[in-house]
């Protein structure tokens, strides 16, 4: 990644300078380049589709950046009185999914997100943000609670995908994903889904059935990881950067393809460099979309939501098959 490479080079030059070599000019030049790059990354704040694009693979790395804000960071910053709920009432509690009730913009909302861990210990608990079926079933249980009380639903998606394990298959992970997708399509409250980091395949989609689907500027959303795609189609997992470009998995591409509704801008260099700015941008977007959706009759939402997803697809019409 150009960005990290530049930072690394600057660091190396500084280290050399400390050893008495004068490299200030070179350092200044690189720093200027780095600044320009940061600005370039942040440019699209006002325009709907960013004109200057960061390379797709660089965005993949930003989406997976270990310092990137996670779901609970957004929940803490943007909501008040968050009350977390646990368990799917069937099997267990999955810490890869956080779900609860909170206050946002003066009203009670349901909030659900996939949660990654900040360090090794937390990642064991959070399973690197890869939910088991019970995580999705907990999410659905809490979203249905929201529906019962007319609380709008906000979801935060940041997962490499549903967990590929024996237990997940034994407990019908495919069925759990299908059920979430199906039920979310018909919940009678507004749903705003936001991809904040990695939107990994079916495991992301199963929480991303929203009336509005937002995406942070450096988030990704894909049918398969670049590594997985490279291994299958290019027969070489190291070709992930090429696969990332081929998959068109970044926000600007997805906006063009009509899969997402809006890109939420990030600060120069990524959300982690200025989390507050990121939070402000997301708060604004949530407020705007929720207010619009709450102004509509609730019974109109499910058919509109289903229509929105039923329209997606690109194919070629031909005269006739025979």
């Amino acid at each position, binding site marked *: 990644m150009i960005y990290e490479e530049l930072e690394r080079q600057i660091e190396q030059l500084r280290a050399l300078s400390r050893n008495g070599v004068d490299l200030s000019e070179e350092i200044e030049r690189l720093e200027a380049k780095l600044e320009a790059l940061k600005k370039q990354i942040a440019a699209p704040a006002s325009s709907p589709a960013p004109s200057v694009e960061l390379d797709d693979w660089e965005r993949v790395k930003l989406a997976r950046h270990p310092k990137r804000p996670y779901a609970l960071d957004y929940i803490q910053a943007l909501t008040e009185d968050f009350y977390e709920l646990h368990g799917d009432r069937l099997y267990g509690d999955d810490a890869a999914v956080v779900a609860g009730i909170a206050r946002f913009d003066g009203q009670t909302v349901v909030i659900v997100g996939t949660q990654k861990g900040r360090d090794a210990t937390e990642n064991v608990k959070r399973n690197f943000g890869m939910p088991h079926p019970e995580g999705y079933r907990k999410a659905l249980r809490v979203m249905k609670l929201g529906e019962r009380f007319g609380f709008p639903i906000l979801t935060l998606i940041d997962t490499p995908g549903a967990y590929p*394990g024996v237990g997940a298959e034994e407990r019908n992970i495919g069925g759990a994903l299908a059920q979430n997708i199906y039920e979310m399509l018909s919940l009678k409250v507004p749903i705003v889904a936001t991809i904040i980091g990695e939107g990994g395949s079916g495991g992301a*989609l199963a929480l991303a059935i929203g009336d509005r689907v937002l995406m942070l500027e450096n988030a990704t959303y894909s049918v398969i990881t670049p590594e997985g795609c490279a291994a299958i189609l290019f027969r070489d997992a190291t070709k992930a950067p090429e696969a990332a470009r081929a998959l068109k998995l970044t926000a600007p591409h997805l906006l063009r393809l009509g899969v997402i509704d809006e890109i939420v801008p990030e600060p120069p260099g990524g959300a982690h460099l200025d989390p507050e700015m990121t939070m402000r941008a997301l708060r604004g977007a949530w407020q705007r979309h929720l207010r619009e959706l709450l102004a509509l009759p609730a019974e109109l939402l499910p058919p509109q939501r289903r229509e929105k997803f039923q329209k997606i*697809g690109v194919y070629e019409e031909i005269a006739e*098959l025979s």
Partner: protein
Amino acid sequence: MAIFGKKYFKVDLERLERKDDEALWMKCKACGELVFKKRVRENNNICPKCGEYFFLTALERIGILVDPGSFEDISRPIIAADPLQFVDEDGKSYSEKVKKAQEETGLANEIIVGRARIGGYPVILAVMDFRFIGGSMGSVMGEQICHAIQHAVQERAAFVLISATGGARMQEGILSLMQMAKTSAARKRLEDAKLPFISIMTYPTTAGVEASIASLGDITLAEKGALIGFTGRRVIKQTIRQELPEDFQTDRFAFEHGIVDNVVKREQLRDELIRIFRLFAPLLAPSAARSVEARDREAIV
């Protein structure tokens, strides 16, 4: 496009019967015995010597399920586009891949939608063909499934989905993922119309299709020998670095873990469907055979 005038795209079941261009005998890969091909075909593509299930194309599958002469292809006239301009490592474009699959299978797409009767009951079938890029779901399959559901609702027919698929069509990127949501949205129309949706999972029914429309049936049947799961064996093995149970993701595994209602032998699938349709009969449009059946019953009474 070159494919425009080609006759072979319209599904014609009679072509199946006339398919005697190849060798008369085949060797069973399971028992090694030489078996007469015609016998195999008559036996639902099951080895007459050892009972091994041979692969079925979509057409063959339709052929063994529907009432003779009742099938009509009602697929939408659409074919795959290449919205991502996807090129794989060999420099081969997605469009070329699709064209090759069309030439090799004689099909326009990986799924066939048809109207038929099974035991006299009106049915809309959507049947996948694994030979066509692994029966993977892209925009065309998503649209064909929605189209099929729309017909089922209009005609008050039962909807039968027969899956043979590796999952989402990677070459269509996010658009293929979205077909999971698209087909699930269409499925709601069957629920609203109170029409039964029978999902039949065969070898294989995995990933994006398994995690959406195939898992949303009112009744879910696994064909004997099916492979059912979300993540592939290889990926799970790499992740957990452990040996997997021998029956992992098999028909029996799916049944024991409550994922399917019943496991059905291929040769019994048609009768199984008829048994089910009989229970839903009052909700389905009347059909000739059903009134015959009703008359018979009245006669008995």
